[in-house]
């Protein structure tokens, strides 16, 4: 299977759909934007895809809690299909608002393999304000999504991104190795003198997986880190490379996540 088919969900205020589609295509997948109503109307079938992406955005304007209203719509109309999809050997990713949707759907962390119950939440940042900046991330765990990735920098842009779970759930998430991405100090934080944890997330959690590792949610935006010129410090890095007689990298590190997904089906 060379080109896995990716369903990139769109509609109702999802707004990172086009760049997410582009990221999957650049990584070698066949991606398609599908409006949620076309799934509900059965004009499109989730079963025809191997990867499901919940892109970032402001579904329903974050009203009633980020990700909540769209999760409700999915739960009301598509739950059976979705449950079947995530239980099969497929991949799913939720980025930013998509992660919030997944959390509200109970796709993550889905402890004990049971999808559907809400166990964690993404709550208002400690600053209680929307924040766009870059963060440094440490990746770990056995998820195919993060295979071979150790430390990369990605941008965040969210108002409700603080990872929260009660201490019992949090303990189990950590113990089971479901923490896939954590905010750490690194190149960007030191470049721009920024704190490592941008929102007060517990245990510095930026992203987690379910127990299978196939379902992945993260607040940072890998699809906005596909190119060198998206980095906040690229003008400096370019100048440095020129002075050292070197070329500049052509792509950003965010693509690794999408390549991993495509690689899973090779």
């Amino acid at each position, binding site marked *: 299977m060379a080109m896995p088919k990716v369903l990139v969900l769109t*509609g*109702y*205020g999802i*707004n*990172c759909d*086009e*760049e997410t589609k*582009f990221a999957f295509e650049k990584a070698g997948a066949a991606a398609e934007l599908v*409006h949620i*109503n*076309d799934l509900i*109307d059965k004009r499109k079938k989730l079963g025809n895809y191997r990867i499901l992406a919940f892109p*970032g*955005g*402001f579904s*329903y*304007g*974050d*009203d*009633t*809690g980020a990700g*909540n*209203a769209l999760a*409700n719509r999915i739960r*009301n*109309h598509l739950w059976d299909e979705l449950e079947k999809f995530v239980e099969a050997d497929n991949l799913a990713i939720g980025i930013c608002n998509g992660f919030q949707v997944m959390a*509200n759907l109970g796709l993550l962390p889905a402890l004990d393999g049971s999808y559907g119950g*809400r*166990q964690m*939440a993404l*709550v*208002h*940042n400690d*600053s*209680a*304000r*929307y*924040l*766009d900046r870059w963060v440094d991330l440490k990746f770990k765990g056995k998820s195919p999504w993060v295979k071979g990735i150790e430390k990369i920098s990605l941008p965040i*842009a969210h108002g409700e991104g603080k990872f*929260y*779970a*009660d201490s019992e759930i949090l303990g189990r998430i950590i113990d089971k190795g479901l923490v896939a991405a954590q905010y750490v100090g690194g190149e960007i934080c030191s*470049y*721009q*003198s920024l704190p490592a944890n941008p929102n*007060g997330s517990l245990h510095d959690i930026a992203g987690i997986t379910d127990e299978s590792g196939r379902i992945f949610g993260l607040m940072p935006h890998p699809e*906005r880190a*596909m*190119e060198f*010129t*998206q980095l*906040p410090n690229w*003008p*400096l890095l370019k*100048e*440095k490379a*020129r*002075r050292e007689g070197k070329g*500049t990298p052509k792509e950003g590190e965010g693509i690794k996540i999408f390549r991993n997904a495509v690689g899973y089906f090779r």
Partner: protein
Amino acid sequence: MAHRIEIGSKIPDMRASLRKKKLEAAGFSGKLKSLELIDAYTIDFALSGEELENIASLLSNPVFQEAQVDEPIAKGGFDYAIEVGFLPGVTDNVGNTARECIEDLLKIKLPGQAVYSSQLMLVSGSLSKEDAMGVGEAIANTLIQRIHIKDCKDFLRGNGMGIIVPKVKLHEQPKAAKADVIGITDVNDDELIVIGKQGIANPDGTRRGPLALDLTYMKAIREYFLREGRNPTDVELESIAQTWSEHCKHTIFADPIDEFEEGLYRKFIKAATNKIRKGKGARDFCISVFTDNSGAIRFDDNYLITAKVETHNSPSALDPFGGAITGIVGVNRDAIGFGLGAKPIINTYGFCFADPNDAKPIYKGKNLTQRMLLPRRIMDGVIEGINAGGNCSGIPTTQGFVYFDSRFKGKPLVFAGTLGLIPKKVLGNKSYEKEARPGDCIVMIGGRVGKDGIHGATFSSEAIDSGSPATAVQIGDPITQKKLSDAVVKEARDLCLYNSITDNGAGGLSCSVAEMARESDGCIVELDKVPLKYQGLNPWEIWISESQERMTLAVPKEKLHAFSDLMKRRGVEATVIGEFTASGRCVVNYSGQKVMDIDMEFLHNGLPPRPIKTRFARQMHEEPKLPSDGDLTDSLHNMLERLNIASYEFISQQYDHEVQGGSVIKPLQGRGRVNGDATIVKPLLDSHKGIVISQGINPSYSDIDTYNMAACAIDTAIRNAIAAGANLEYLALLDNFCWCSSNEPERLGQLKRAAQACHDYAIAFEVPFISGKDSMFNDFKGFDEKGRAVKISVPPTLLISSVGIIEDAEKAVSLDAKFENDLVYVLGETYDELGGSEYFAMLGEQENGKSHIGNKVPAVDAAKNKKLYNALSRAIEKEFVASAQSVHRGGLAVALAKTAIAGTLGMESSLEALPGDKLRDDSAFYSESPGRLVVTVNSTNKESFEQIMHGNPFAQIGIVRGDGKFIIKGRAGKTIINTNISDMLKSYKSTFGGY
């Protein structure tokens, strides 16, 4: 029976902490001990207990929240419960989403609004009942929101706040299917004046609000109806008033002015663009200028970039959040409404506020009534409005500025711009041309129609009672618009499902339909078909309502089914409300009665010209005495802390500037995260080409000469873009005039000079204007804190925005100095041009609390600058420039400081070799002479760089240090600045540190 669901947080609610901080800043510091927030939903529908429990869990998250049905969450432990909810008829986005969720869950359709959101603050501390009201007023805006307060005892006795349903109840049901006939054919001029000024009379003798039609216009209307042999209906009169308004026809720019019969717009703006385009010949990149909702230029072989900048000033003074969000979401529709629909890809903003520390109230009414919002409140609300509008819509807000002057206290200026992307061709048709054809259906899509924005400008809060909708101010609904936008520009457009599209902005349907009807030469509208938010609107209200998030399309009959089906599947309401015709008449019916039937030609071109006379005399100001020349270190730190210079990082960071994945040069640059003057975005994910966007604005120069003000705004907007990597060959401009008292000959004289400068400098730089907008009456008439009558007029302000295309975004240049020992150059000449400068303002404020103005306002030498900019563009193209920063407000001092603190390395320089006149150190340091830039260059590129710059005024004045020191020597070789980057950073970031 209505129900109430309350939701509280089980974990510390960070919104409550922020709210508390905000209230402390608003004067409740020390009084307020604790604050908790409860979100509430009031559901005006009979539901079972089980249904309500399901709804409660639908609207809350059990991981960190608890929900209660028909029971308060709070059980005591607070002093006051302060609830803030919307007044009837105000857009309630959260309520709307909750309704949709409930409908989706229960598979039912709730009647009307049915679900209302509100928020409860539980506060304790040493607060009196009055304080509690003060807390409510510091959070709520009583124009659009209600405040309901109970003390703890009351709250517990009444088992909570009780249920308030803010449903719209219109007292006076319109007499079914009737438009009033207004007698104007047989009345005298005095009566015409009254009708034009105060509006149509209601049966009770009150007036509906101004039509803003003066006697000249009223007479023309009377003559028309005499010819028609009848009196007009109210629908007709209101409709003409909208179409002929300053807002729609831009009469001040169109009417003959002094010796220029063709008016300012045609004489200066359009003529300049025409001349430049002709001169450019094959190099002309303009595709659509001044005619459509946005201007458009070629991006590459397949795509066009559209651009438009709007203002939303008056609404933002009344409701800063609503005004600003409506402004940004509204200008997005100028992209969607361009050609067959462009996708909004970049938002820009610009804010002119009064000093946020100014706590002296002003009042609209006599005897200290109708208190206006304080500058800080306006600033916070406007910033939040653009945040909500831009972020929710998924459009990166990259470029913007804030500017402060006490004269923006009565009315702030809120600029909101949108760039769009559109393929040049759609299914083989030119996407930038559109034409409604006779027989096409008139289709309205998006939101529904309420009383929003009807005669908004003349709104008085006293006229509101508990059941009447708050009509003056509107709140944008970005999600309704996002659904509409996606459905149009991502699907319907590319299927060619419609022939024409335009925005419903000012004047609502009356303007959008009548405007499109020009394409086919006529229309017939059935007003009964227009979907309403609530019943009880009069036909004239439906016709001119400015309810947001609506667009009007011309859909051919054979495509109507496909179009309607698509909209339905995308959750977008689409309604056929009539048909375009070729009858030459604009006809409107309402329940069987013809309520409007006007000749198209008269409607659009019947307004008689009103020649304008102007006067201009340059004002002379006292030349300030400068302090004795000496050390300027403290002065520099003071300068960096000034409102007009300081970092506004807190704004840049709360606006998503990276969505859509095209961010190249970001609003914050370098290690020091310094606000840049230009941003760059790559609009196509698979192309290297970039768009450079920048702005220039210099209101303070207007106090001396608006010609120089405009020239400097143009030069700055151009130079900022050049510094980032743009070139003059491929750059376009947008103008936004925000004037005051535009009925006074002196103000109009200033306007004429500014327009003249736009003409002269656009031509001199060969940079065309592609779009513009004006707002001519930014005046506040009211009373100060002692009840004395005041008029506060904004300084004549011109915002120039520049849009450029660059071939290779990777050749863009950021402003931060990058490596130790790099050479620091100043390009351009420095003269004694401190008139209207930030330095003079600072000196004056330090002396007597009032800006000095002076007389030597900066003058632009376009020929000299053009040569220099072209040389710099070549140097950047060859990649010889490591950083570039243009010199503007705060002069060389600020440009050098920003370059250095963005790099956080250090700098050493000397003013000795500075090109230009030999000046005092402070004058050289702070002069705002245009045409200048600070650049840093790798020393190995020294020769190549200097060779390219040869023939232009420039000098190497220093080097980048690596030890964090910032040292500047004056003309005599004496050190005048000796400080370090970390202290400078502190100064630069302290002013808005707590915002």
